[in-house]
């Protein structure tokens, strides 16, 4: 995709400490009054023309949230967030309903263009050669043909465009902003919303339930293999705006979908809050593959600014033989608090978690997964690669648990950490609970420092210090990169090199 190539080219030119997404788009926007109250929630719900039950659902969550306290168990530190000092809703003006991309504010389209997001529907030529910079297929064999990607773009609080709608409709796939789904498919939303992450789940998820303003909704009908990758790009643009998206994906019996998520934000001195919730439901024989490349603004080299990313992501393998796979590449955010998890409820269901978490500068990452084995003969696999550079702290926190009735549960976990420099930290906190004697859990963990001798070997062959680090790190994370869809893998590979720039002296 030309847009992707363009992104790569632009990425190549970036300097250390110059976050490439750090531009702000000047557009008029409509905001809810600052602060959080029942009125704010009523305002949001009214703006979205939501059904009455939805407002009640939100208010209930809000009342619950008031009784909760912010969790402090993660290995992250940050000044107290003043929840009354945030805007909870910001929508680009004009608010009139848009029927096609042509009616969207050109400034917003330009923003997405700058981000390299292919909003325009482009017929992709068959058999076009990939650029040489494409992800290595080791011996340079032709890579897989390019795939179509349908994109839903969320700007601050609202979804601005969803592409390929018609083609998806033909397949029976529903892919639209969740605010729209609430109006067009209220029964479907009501049936599944909050069934994986209940409104009472945790502080940030409960807050999200009260104030979420948009996000994506996906429904794949029984037996349907979604004909293209679905993708959402999130961008926080407004100052002091929290972004609270809600994503709900349902794969009905025998369905398959691959979903990609990308995130950016402008560069700002103050911290911005991002508290999203993602719920996945896989029914019998269904499979959901969810990939994230998270590149929120991480703050500057002194640790000022950056996104606070408190995200709850959970998948429910509700049906027998279902499968949910999480793949994440986390390079951004000042603070990451995120544990994409799988509830293996259906018999023979399986869950996977592949993660690359890179921290540099003053970033703090506390991320991992939970694999909850409930059904019989369930299996899970966790491959986590943490890379800490600069003065960052990088923690893997994971739980693997087998219920009493989860006979035959199996898990394999491998957590590898790589340290670059001597001022950073890597931590591994695995929790393992087996209440069934037939459960087999394996756990491997390594921590290593990037070897000076290996770097010298690369440099002796002509690579610069930074190219050498990029190469070694890309090798370190290869097992996970391979899990990403091709288009994302290319970008992720470049992102990894960029986020480590300036990490070695």
């Amino acid at each position, binding site marked *: 995709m030309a847009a992707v190539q363009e992104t790569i080219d632009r990425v190549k030119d970036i300097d250390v400490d110059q976050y490439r997404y750090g531009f702000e788009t000047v557009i008029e926007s409509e905001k809810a009054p600052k602060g959080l109250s029942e009125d704010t929630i009523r305002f949001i719900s009214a703006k979205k023309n939501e059904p009455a039950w939805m407002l009640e659902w939100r208010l209930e969550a809000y009342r619950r949230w008031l009784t909760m306290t912010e969790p402090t168990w993660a290995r992250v530190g940050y000044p107290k967030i003043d929840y009354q000092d945030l805007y909870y809703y910001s929508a680009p003006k004009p608010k009139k309903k848009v029927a096609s991309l042509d009616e969207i504010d050109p400034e917003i389209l330009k923003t997405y263009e700058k981000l390299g997001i292919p909003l325009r529907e482009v017929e992709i030529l068959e058999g076009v050669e990939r650029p*040489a910079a494409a992800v*290595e297929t*080791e*011996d*340079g064999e032709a890579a897989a043909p390019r795939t179509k990607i349908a994109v839903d773009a969320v700007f601050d609080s609202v979804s601005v465009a969803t592409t390929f709608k018609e083609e998806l409709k033909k397949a029976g796939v529903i892919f639209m902003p969740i605010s729209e789904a609430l109006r067009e498919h209220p029964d479907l939303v009501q049936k599944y919303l909050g069934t994986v992450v209940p409104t009472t789940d945790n502080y940030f998820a409960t807050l999200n339930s009260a104030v979420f303003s948009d996000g994506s909704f996906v429904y794949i009908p029984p037996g349907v293999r979604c004909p293209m990758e679905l993708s959402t790009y999130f961008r926080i643009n407004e100052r002091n705006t929290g972004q609270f998206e809600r994503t709900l994906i349902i794969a009905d019996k025998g369905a398959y979908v691959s979903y990609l998520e990308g995130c950016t934000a402008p560069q700002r001195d103050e911290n911005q809050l991002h508290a999203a919730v993602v719920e996945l439901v896989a029914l019998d024989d269904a499979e959901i593959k969810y990939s994230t490349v998270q590149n929120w603004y991480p703050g500057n080299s002194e640790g000022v600014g950056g996104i606070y990313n408190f995200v709850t992501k959970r998948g429910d393998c509700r049906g027998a033989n279902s499968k949910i796979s999480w793949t994440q590449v986390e390079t951004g955010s000042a603070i990451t608090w995120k544990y994409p998890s799988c509830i293996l409820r259906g018999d023979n269901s399986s869950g996977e978690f592949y993660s690359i978490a890179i921290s540099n500068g003053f970033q703090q990452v506390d991320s991992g997964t939970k694999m909850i084995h409930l059904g019989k003969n369930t299996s899970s696999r966790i491959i986590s690669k943490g890379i800490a550079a600069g003065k960052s702290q990088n923690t893997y926190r994971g739980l693997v648990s087998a219920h009493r009735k989860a006979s035959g549960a199996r898990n394999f976990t491998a957590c590898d950490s790589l340290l670059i420099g001597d001022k950073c930290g890597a931590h591994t906190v695995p929790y393992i609970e087996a209440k069934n004697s037939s459960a087999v859990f394996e756990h491997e963990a390594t921590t290593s420092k990037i*070897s*000076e*001798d*290996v770097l*010298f*070997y*690369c*440099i*002796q*062959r*002509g*690579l*610069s*210090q930074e*190219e050498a680090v990029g*190469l*070694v790190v*890309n*090798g*370190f*994370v*290869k*097992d996970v990169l391979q899990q990403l869809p091709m288009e994302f893998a290319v970008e992720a590979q470049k992102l990894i090199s960029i986020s480590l720039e300036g990490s070695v002296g």
Partner: protein
Amino acid sequence: MTALLEIKGLHAEIAGGRKIIQGLDLTVNKGEIHAIMGPNGAGKSTLSYVLAGKPGYEITAGEVYLNGEDLLAMSADERAAKGVFLAFQYPLEIPGVATLTFLRAAFNAQRKARGEEELSSPDLIKRVREIAKTLNIDADMLKRPLNVGFSGGEKKRNETLQMALLQPSLCVLDETDSGLDIDALKVVANGVNALRSAERGMIVITHYQRLLDYIVPDIVHVFAAGRIVRTGGADLARELEATGYAQYQSEAA
């Protein structure tokens, strides 16, 4: 005519103060192969690292010129782009990075540094495969992560492959014979001999005469206690095989 490599009065020590190279003079002209022989701990490997620019060594005196340019003023990657190639005694492993990926990264990094155009992937692959064939390297080895799980022979053939691809002007071979059986030694030596040219110079570092039966040097130096104590022709190597290094160690001390 300028010499390819000119080392004058070189003194070098390991960070921490241990003196390793103590007054080395050596001139290598284009087209020449020099063998450096000597006992363990004489500073032979240090010489190769100092030439390649490995961090951790301090040059306390002396000058080194490559084609008349001040080599010591260049960073290690600049030296590589200028044509200095070190075949490592113990090549390093890089998990997850396919050998071919590494070759491409190195080849194009050097081209870029010299202001040349990068070679397209298909052209590069073709070139690599041609060289690989002459070294009995099969396509599968090119896909495997660099040096990971390679046998001693595979590692050294891989070093030779890199050297043949990068076409350096100065090759420094550090104990290339270590870890090789006689068949592997012949393959590697053939690969090195194929690179002999009037434009290229080589320094072959070894303990043993054996390697020099296959890579025949023009000049042989005996290196002891950080400097050259004797210089001769190819016969010197055979003489050393018979007499050993003991006399030079006492001489140097």
